[in-house]
């Protein structure tokens, strides 16, 4: 409950939309003059484009941007220079590219050049080319979407034609008047000048901006002269002064100045933001204040997120080691060359004989850096990106992550942290919507102290297949009910423990019925037969008063029931719309039925009895005495039936009810409820199931269908919206039937129960009330135990004078500017007291499928699962129980305390207990109880403070799981941050709502569940899944694989580079450390870039160390079993050593085989290079765990490519590739058996230790 209110709270902060009366939070509101003056240098003036101030407009608006947007980075002409520039400025590749460029320029210095200059350009060109192609692709996509957006049409006022004409978005300028109608998207930031709504409001949906689907209200500039039906742009002569464009969505300051008149302040509720959608309002007109890139939406548009994965951080240190290695090698060469030059200064082979040894050594140092450049695995970064893309591709395509209901796959939003999924140690989960469906289904309710279990409902919501569809056809449901009634009534009595057979039966039955009941929103409720009967008696009682069936009902109970459902239907902020007329206010229909008057009368009478008036003091006694004695009450209440022609009205009602049913069917098709939270929607839907239907909403009234009565207009006086301090919301309405001012309050049980404590009135009434209270409390406890979300419904009847008094205060509070919030709170509190408890509701938010299994598996995998929820402790513990986070033999440590000292003491105490237990556990092996810490928000607040952090950490580390309830979003993120930073573990946060956003962002891996609550969580997440159970495969299989693959790939890559480079290094010992190479430079460069570049990629994308089902079955394999151990320094150095060994073998076997012979340089390099290729490829075959035909193909292709290139190159290239002309070398070599003998031996010896 609290969380959705938080969402609302947050969006209010965000957009400062407010409810009906339009009180605005002062901080964002009016700018004081002084502040405006202060910022006068940085403000913009907006004038009507076609207004009288033409010249001034020209002058002022010249520097304002048009509305066309261009998000592409490049144009055709500027692509090459811009892209190059961008690439060198990109943080990720910067180092790599600079390194390449550095090498390339080094190579252009003749004295140190190692290869021909063009050869050394290949790597950098290749990398740049790959990146550029990727950029072109992305940019083209952006370009297309830009063009689409820029060419959208909107109606702009044209002064020549004196009317609104269609224009492209891109042609809209600051100062234009834009007319928008319902469902149009706002093209630029507009100042709302006119709305067809008589109150001057307009609704916008900000889904495009922040993903929230609820409606926000915007207000026409509070200036009477503008408002009215006769708004014409021609008459607009005002000047608007406002801030310069900024990216703050909820801030807009400025004023509008009419010619010679006073200034009127502007604030963010006057601003229609670009890319929002107009809803529920016919027409609005606004003047453009910010356009194009200066709109707040565009300025908020930030690039994609980039998270640095843990592995990459480790990798960077290893790359540094590689750099160190490189420098050592180059230094060795430099020193060696210096000495060599000293010895052979004037030899016949010494070309630059006069050079000093030190200088020669210095030159050689740089030459060696070029020669050994591949040691720095720069292309590794590109490879890693490609590998991750491949991994993402496979994750994205996993059939197991497909959700049929939503037709959604997993969304991978962060592309570079796949391997972090394999190292998660702490998982922080939200409860609602994450562990549970967040499909709030009205489950049961208690009215008047009587519990209505809604058995069928439970069955439906217990089903694994959620009902699909939106129809609740009365006729059908009735017929179904008649069929199921017997069973459900049986089960009502016998099914306390829910025998499986019956459950089966029922679920079969329900499953067969889903066609009729299908509701995509799962908002349908099967009414409780008992309650339906009682409710039906409302209509029947008025009309068939002599009918004996009504006798069984107490009228007081009936009023309670009616009020209860009325409250459910109206005490909310749900917006009603219908698909055919999207989000329009359903036109107010009247036509109350004939019998309305009668019912009204009855109601008045009932109220008369049950509440207030002391005149009938005597009667309640008899009333109560008869309350529980069936039979008499009916006659007592309805002894004076006001209806006259009974037969006729009977008939009339029969027909009218039929038509009513008909119309209900029709209208049910149409009605769509847009609630700010699923709870509200669930309640409204529940009320509708009882034909207490909310049909429409306007600012001042609500249109409600009541069973047997028809549509009623309820005059809405006030809405006191929810806030988390009060934990309740209220509506003040004039009761449609009694005409009294009634307050309906809906809120958290604890609060309402307190407020409903005292009751005025007679003793009997008090007694009944006390009974109700007790019963309700009992039911509440029961609901909480069942894990239902409970809400209490209460009402209060206000006397007119009472209301007047309150109203004055309220208006005062609204109009005040200072401490408005406090005053409002105060005012609300004054209203919400002495409530009459009507009943309570239990909303089930059932567990998603396979949640217990998933949590179990994750825990087995060594991941600590924490639940952070805003819910009540009982509910949280309950859910924890249900999802097996909490097992029966676990010990619950509860931490609730009121003060910091108490908290400190408690933590210490718990810690001691846990330690003792641990010591005990060591001695006695068989005690298996684990600790579960349950901590509430307030205690958490203390625990997160610096002094207590340590003990809280220690305590929580010793616990198997921690449940934080009643926690705020901030606390959630603090907890995650604490664990992440202090323990230094990989954290994963999963959540679905806006209140999880901060947590998701803080965690190393943030997972959003695309559920019922908007898109914020998904927007801020790294991965978005649709079901909690998907986590299991995502972590256990994909996480494991990705980590394994990437770690192995990196090691392999480094191995490959070190091994290959060392071959060149060893040769330096035989060529006077002169930086000479025995391999053709093209082959040398392409060896890494082409011949052996794809196998590691394939290895990184496709390798599976263990099959998926094994990983799923044995979660232990995930954690300490190996994943975290692959990529540690030891393995790195082992890999390096292995590479050294292999390179030694690979160099020295051919060396000894050919030493002293007449072998030429390149002929000598040929078997070495070929062996290296075989060793590297076969090394991978040995290392990889799976070999599919793709592996084989790639390995084969690599080999073929190498031999093909080398042979063709050596066959046809006569004078090319200057110092290392390969002409005929390879063909000659490959025609000699010695070549193969050497290669075989070398390869075998090099790989022998791998066995």
């Amino acid at each position: 409950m609290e969380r959705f209110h938080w969402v609302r709270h947050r969006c209010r902060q965000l957009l400062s939309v407010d409810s009906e009366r339009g009180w605005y939070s002062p901080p964002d509101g009016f700018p004081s003059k002084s502040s405006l003056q202060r910022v006068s240098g940085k403000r913009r003036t907006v004038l009507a484009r076609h207004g009288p101030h033409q010249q001034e407009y020209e002058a002022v608006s010249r520097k304002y941007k048009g509305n066309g947007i261009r998000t592409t980075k490049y144009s055709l002409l500027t692509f090459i220079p811009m892209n190059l520039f961008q690439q060198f400025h990109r943080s990720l590749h910067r180092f790599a590219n600079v390194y390449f460029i550095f090498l390339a320029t080094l190579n252009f210095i003749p004295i140190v050049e190692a290869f021909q200059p063009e050869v050394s350009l290949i790597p950098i060109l290749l990398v740049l080319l790959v990146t550029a192609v990727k950029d072109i692709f992305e940019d083209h996509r952006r370009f297309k979407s830009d063009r689409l957006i820029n060419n959208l049409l909107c109606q702009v006022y044209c002064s020549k034609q004196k009317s609104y004409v269609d224009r492209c978005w891109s042609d809209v300028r600051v100062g234009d008047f834009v007319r928008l109608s319902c469902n149009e998207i706002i093209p630029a930031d507009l100042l709302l000048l006119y709305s067809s709504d008589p109150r001057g409001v307009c609704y916008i949906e900000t889904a495009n901006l922040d993903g929230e689907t609820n409606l926000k209200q915007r207000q026409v500039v509070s200036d009477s002269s503008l408002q009215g039906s006769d708004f014409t742009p021609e008459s607009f002569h005002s000047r608007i002064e406002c801030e310069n464009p900024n990216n703050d969505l909820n801030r807009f300051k400025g004023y509008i100045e009419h010619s010679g008149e006073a200034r009127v302040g502007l604030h963010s509720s006057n601003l229609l933001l670009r890319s929002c959608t107009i809803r529920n309002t016919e027409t609005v007109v606004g003047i453009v204040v910010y356009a194009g890139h200066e709109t707040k939406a565009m300025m908020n548009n930030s690039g994609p997120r980039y998270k640095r994965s843990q592995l990459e951080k480790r990798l960077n240190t290893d790359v540094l080691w590689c750099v160190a290695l490189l420098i050592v090698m180059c230094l060795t060469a430099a020193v060696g060359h210096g000495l060599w030059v000293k010895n052979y200064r004037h030899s016949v082979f010494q070309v630059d004989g006069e050079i000093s040894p030190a200088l020669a050594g210095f030159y050689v140092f740089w030459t060696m850096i070029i020669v050994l450049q591949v040691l720095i695995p720069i292309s590794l970064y590109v490879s890693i990106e490609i590998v991750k893309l491949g991994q993402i591709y496979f994750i994205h395509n996993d059939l197991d992550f497909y959700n049929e209901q939503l037709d959604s796959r997993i969304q991978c939003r962060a592309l570079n942290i796949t391997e972090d999924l394999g190292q998660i140690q702490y998982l922080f989960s939200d409860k609602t919507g994450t562990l549970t469906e967040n499909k709030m289904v009205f489950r049961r309710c208690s009215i008047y102290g009587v519990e209505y279990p809604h058995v069928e409902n439970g069955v439906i919501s217990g089903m694994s297949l959620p009902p699909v569809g939106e129809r609740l056809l009365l006729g059908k449901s009735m017929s179904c009910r008649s069929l199921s009634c017997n069973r459900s009534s049986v089960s009502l009595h016998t099914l306390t423990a829910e025998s499986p057979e019956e459950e089966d039966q029922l679920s079969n039955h329900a499953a067969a019925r889903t066609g009729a009941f299908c509701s995509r929103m799962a908002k349908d409720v099967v009414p409780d037969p008992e309650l339906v009967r009682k409710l039906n008696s409302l209509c029947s009682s008025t009309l068939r008063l002599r009918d004996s069936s009504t006798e069984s009902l107490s009228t007081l109970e009936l009023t309670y029931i009616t009020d209860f459902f009325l409250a459910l239907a109206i005490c909310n902020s749900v917006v009603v719309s219908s698909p055919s007329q999207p989000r329009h206010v359903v036109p107010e229909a009247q036509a109350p039925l004939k019998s309305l008057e009668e019912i009204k009368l009855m109601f008045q009478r009932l109220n008369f009895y049950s509440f207030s008036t002391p005149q009938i003091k005597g009667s309640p006694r008899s009333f109560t005495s008869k309350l529980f004695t069936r039979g008499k009450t009916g006659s007592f209440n309805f002894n004076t039936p006001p209806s006259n022609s009974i037969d006729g009205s009977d008939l009339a009602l029969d027909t009218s009810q039929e038509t009513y049913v008909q119309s209900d069917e029709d209208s049910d098709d149409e009605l769509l409820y847009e609630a700010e939270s699923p709870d509200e929607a669930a309640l409204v839907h529940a009320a509708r199931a009882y034909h207490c239907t909310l049909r429409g909403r306007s600012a001042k009234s609500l249109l409600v269908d009541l069973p047997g009565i028809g549509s009623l207009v309820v005059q809405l006086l006030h809405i006191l919206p929810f806030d988390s301090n009060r934990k309740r919301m209220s509506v003040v309405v004039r009761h449609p039937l009694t005409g009294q001012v009634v307050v309906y309050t809906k809120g958290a049980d604890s609060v309402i129960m307190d407020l409903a404590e005292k009751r005025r009135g007679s003793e009997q009434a008090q007694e009944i009330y006390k009974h109700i209270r007790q019963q309700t409390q009992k039911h509440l406890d029961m609901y909480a135990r069942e894990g239902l979300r409970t809400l209490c419904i209460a009402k209060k009847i206000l006397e007119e004078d009472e209301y007047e008094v309150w109203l004055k205060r309220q208006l005062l509070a609204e109009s005040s500017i200072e401490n408005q919030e406090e005053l409002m709170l105060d005012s609300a509190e004054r209203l919400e007291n002495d409530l009459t408890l009507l009943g309570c509701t239990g909303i089930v938010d059932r567990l998603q499928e396979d949640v217990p299994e998933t949590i179990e598996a994750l825990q087995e995998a060594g991941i600590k699962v924490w639940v952070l929820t805003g819910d009540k402790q009982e509910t949280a513990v309950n859910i924890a129980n249900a999802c097996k986070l909490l097992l029966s033999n676990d010990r619950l440590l509860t931490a609730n305390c009121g003060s910091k000292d108490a908290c400190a003491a408690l933590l210490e105490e718990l810690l001691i207990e846990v330690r003792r237990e641990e010591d005990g556990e060591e001695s006695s092996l068989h005690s298996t109880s684990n600790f579960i810490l349950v901590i509430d928000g307030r205690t958490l607040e203390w625990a997160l403070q610096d002094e207590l952090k340590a003990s809280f950490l220690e305590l929580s580390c010793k616990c198997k799981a921690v449940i934080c309830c009643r926690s705020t979003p901030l606390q959630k993120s603090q907890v995650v941050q604490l664990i992440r930073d202090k323990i230094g573990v990989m954290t994963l946060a999963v959540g679905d709502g806006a209140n999880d956003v901060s947590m998701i962002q803080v965690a190393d891996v943030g997972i959003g569940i695309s559920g019922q609550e908007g898109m914020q969580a998904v927007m801020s997440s790294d991965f978005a899944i649709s079901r909690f159970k998907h986590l299991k495969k995502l972590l256990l299989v994909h996480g494991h694989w990705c980590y394994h693959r990437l770690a192995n790939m990196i090691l392999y890559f480094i191995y490959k580079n070190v091994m290959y480079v060392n071959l060149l290094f060893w040769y330096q010992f035989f060529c006077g450390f002169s930086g000479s190479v025995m391999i053709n430079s093209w082959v040398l460069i392409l060896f890494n870039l082409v011949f052996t570049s794809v196998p590691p990629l394939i290895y990184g994308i496709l390798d599976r160390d263990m099959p998926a089902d094994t990983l799923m079955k044995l979660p232990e394999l995930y954690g300490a079993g190996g994943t975290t151990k692959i990529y540690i320094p030891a393995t790195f150095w082992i890999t390096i050593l292995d590479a050294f060994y292999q390179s030694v073998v690979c160099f020295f076997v051919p060396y000894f085989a050919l030493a002293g012979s007449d072998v030429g340089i390149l002929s000598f390099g040929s078997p070495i290079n070929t062996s290296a290729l075989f060793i590297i490829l076969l090394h991978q075959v040995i290392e990889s765990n799976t070999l599919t035909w793709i592996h084989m193909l790639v390995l084969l292709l690599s080999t073929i490519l190498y031999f093909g290139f080398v042979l063709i190159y050596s066959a046809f290239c006569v004078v090319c590739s200057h110092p290392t002309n390969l002409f005929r070398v390879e063909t000659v070599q490959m025609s000699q058996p010695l070549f193969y003998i050497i290669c075989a031996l070398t390869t075998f010896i090099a790989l022998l230790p791998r066995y």
Partner: protein
Amino acid sequence: MASSYKDEDGHITVSGSGAAAGAGGGSLRSKKPENTAFKQQRLPAWQPILTAGTVLPAFFIIGLMFIPIGIGLYVTSNNIKEFEIDYTGVEMSSPCFTCAQNFSWNGTKPCTCSVPFHLDQPYESNVFMYYGLSNFYQNHRRYVKSRDDSQLNGNEESLRKPSKECEPYAKHGNKPIAPCGAIANSMFNDSLELIYNDPNGTKVQIPLTATGIAWWTDKHVKFRNPGAENTNLTVVFQGTTQPVNWRRPVFQLDSDPDNNGFINEDFIVWMRTAALPTFRKLYRIIQRRSNVHPTLPRGNYTLEVVYNYPVRSFEGRKRMILSTISWMGGKNPFLGIAYISVGSVCFLLGVVLLIIHHKYGNRNNAAEISH
């Protein structure tokens, strides 16, 4: 009636939700990933698992394969006859000592010396005569680079304008050097003659074939004299000068026009730079004359050296090598020994593993079963 209606409905629902939850049904493109083996990562894979069952046979097979190959290589290598003689003239006693001492590149009068040696066994088949240099870094980076391939390929332009890679041996005075570069400049220019001292006292000069020592493609494709075929090389090379250390211009390397200029095989051989500082290069081939007589009979020989090439400055050595060759090239026992030892190690490992496997493997299996 009612139930049948419901069934129908239920059926529709199931199929509908299967296709797509939306209204479009089949026509709407579902986001459902394709269920292919590739996309679902279910490709049939071979996992190279190393078990005793696979490793042991592998070891044995490799051992059994390598040992014979090794033996074959070793025998082949042993059958190769090789004779090597150092004629550097470092020691006082050496016949070439004097020549080695008084050396200058530009000396007008060639210094000669004769080195006697004795062949213990007759050399059958063709005998290859090599000169060997030690400590000569033909693989030095600057040295290797210092040539102009296109000049050597007969390019007239490069002949006149040698590549800058040849610096500082690109030009001498104002004339371009042909062939330019350090490699050409430092060309080995000792001439060696073999004289057989017949037991009967006569000295027989062994005929040495100077052609066929370079790769065919080098001689016919890579190296070409500038100008058209059969033109006078003297004319062609007009305007160029010989390398600094050369005594004769390039067109006077040999009297045979097919072995003169850039296509002189001694030159080509020299230009194919050696991989290691101690190397040999093919100098001449002693063709086998008849099947009756060995190419080089057992006995005393004299190596007549025209001592031109200085090696003392870099403490190098000069050798003359006589060798028969086999399919695997020159004499090199290393490969054979390596193969034999690797094979033996494999075999031994196989045996050891087999014993271990027999001793402990069964126990492990037993333990697993008992579990």
